[in-house]
């Protein structure tokens, strides 16, 4: 056997290895995307027929009666998101600014670690915590309790994304503003946060999309409600909770409504993510 043919054999084997490796990565990529397609497919097949005007405009019908909708749950979810945002957005953003701009390196690394631990806590834990702190003390489930549980989940999420986008703002801008005799806090608010605003808003939207689908923390806080909520100190309906209740019920009509609810919820989250993509498209130009 000549040297040349030896090299050719080797070359073939390399080509095969190369083909195997690219096939493996391709199959993995498909496996990653497939569940998303499956979810949408199932939701459309099972839920699309039940998504109609009644679904968005009517209250649930009593058991045994067909029809009705989830209007109260959709509005309830929006109210809960507003309450959660009122807690999670200011605390998360200000905390992120503190981590990026103030504080000592050692304290900040501790805070950062704690925020990461909080991000990893199962969401049902937050429900239990708020149940103990609020529901038991005030003797009742309420929209406030649900909003607090969701808000607490938002804080570490927003804190970390805010910190990261603020650290992306080049130091030259801070120095330029300070060298003009601008006070530190004004520099941070008018120069640094303004430069990072798209990133901060993106972080907030992603956090809202994430908690919009949370069910577990609402089980023993917001509790759910089959009627309109007239006071935030009363139990309130939420889309994921309603889906949960309907999905484990024995009635076919409720199952159909659960599918429809899930389709609406996923579409909502999807829209928020598309909005984020649109917002971040021009980001490279504005931050760097």
């Amino acid at each position: 056997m000549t040297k040349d043919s030896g090299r050719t054999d080797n070359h073939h084997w390399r080509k095969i290895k190369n083909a195997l490796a690219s096939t493996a990565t391709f199959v993995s990529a498909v496996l990653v995307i497939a569940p998303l397609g499956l979810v949408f497919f199932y939701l459309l097949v099972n839920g699309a027929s039940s998504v109609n005007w009644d679904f968005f405009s009517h209250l649930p019908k009593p058991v045994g009666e067909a029809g009705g909708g989830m209007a109260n749950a959709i509005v309830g979810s929006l109210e809960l998101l507003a309450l959660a945002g009122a807690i999670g957005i200011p605390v998360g953003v200000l905390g992120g600014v503190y981590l990026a701009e103030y504080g000592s390196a050692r304290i900040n690394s501790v805070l950062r670690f704690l925020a990461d631990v909080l991000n990893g806590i199962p969401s049902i834990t937050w429900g239990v915590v708020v149940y103990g702190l609020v529901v038991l003390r005030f003797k009742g489930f309420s929209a406030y309790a649900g909003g607090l549980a969701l808000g607490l989940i938002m804080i570490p999420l927003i804190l970390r994304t805010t910190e990261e986008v603020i650290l992306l703002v080049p130091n030259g801008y801070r120095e330029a503003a300070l060298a003009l005799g601008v006070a530190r806090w004004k520099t941070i608010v008018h120069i640094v946060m303004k430069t990072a605003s798209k990133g901060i808003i993106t972080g907030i939207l992603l956090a809202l999309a994430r908690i919009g689908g949370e069910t577990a923390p609402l089980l023993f806080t917001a509790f759910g409600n089959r009627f309109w909520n007239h006071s935030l100190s009363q139990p309130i309906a939420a889309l994921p909770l309603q889906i949960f209740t309907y999905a484990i019920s024995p009635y076919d009509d409720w199952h159909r409504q659960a599918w429809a609810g899930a389709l609406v919820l996923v579409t909502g989250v999807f829209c928020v993510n598309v909005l984020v993509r649109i917002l971040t498209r021009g980001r490279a130009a504005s931050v760097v």
Partner: protein
Amino acid sequence: MATPEQRVTERVEGPAQPPASSEPAPKLTFEAKNVSIWYGEKRAIDDVSLNIASNAVTAIIGPSGCGKSTFLRALNRMHELVPKTRMEGTVLLHGGDLYSKTIDPAIVRRRVGMVFQKSNPFPTMTIGENVVVGLRLNGVRNQKFLNERLERSLRMAALWDEVKDDLHKPGTSLSGGQQQRLCIARALAVEPEVILMDEPCSALDPIATAKIEELIYELKAQYTIVTVTHNMQQAGRISDYTAFLYLGRLIEFGPTTTIFTNPTERQTEDYITGRFG
């Protein structure tokens, strides 16, 4: 030849003076006395005393890491932004102590403006907003006043004719040299007494550099200018006085013509002739 130790002792005895000559002694803007600066354990500036003349351009030259930027930043307390900085000595601006406990660094920086190596117009603002941002954020609301100051600053920075129709465009849409002149206009708009320039041309092409140098020459009629450069030819072209720093120490200081044609210290001569650095 004097040993390094002897030279240090000599320098401690009195601040290096702008040269005694037949002309009357120049008015002083800064008087830095025995300034030493540490970053943590590292000593960046070692006992530098230097007087900076008014309405003149003083260039600080020296190899990278010699402390020239640190010394420049000590003149408007920008070096304090680095954590764990420590300073000894005094810096007087028109006779007043810049480091007095009662003085807010923001006030110092309003009096002593700064232009940086890399042009840094704010990316979220238009050309016009960039120029007056210092006034706005310091509380000026009068639109007529802001407009006047906007035009005057841009004219002084020799940029008005190029941008007067594009004031609403983003500051970052300008070319590199224009951006640097925009930053100079921004610094001028708050009416400082002094302008510090930290290698203002090192990121620019020769034509843009020539424009900035011409601008510096014109500005010294109204401002005291201190500039850091590691371009020797530039120091020779634009400055009236030159200070040579090496390893955090002031090796030699005097009129630029003397430093470049007849330096006293061997190290200065070696550096200027390109034997090291």
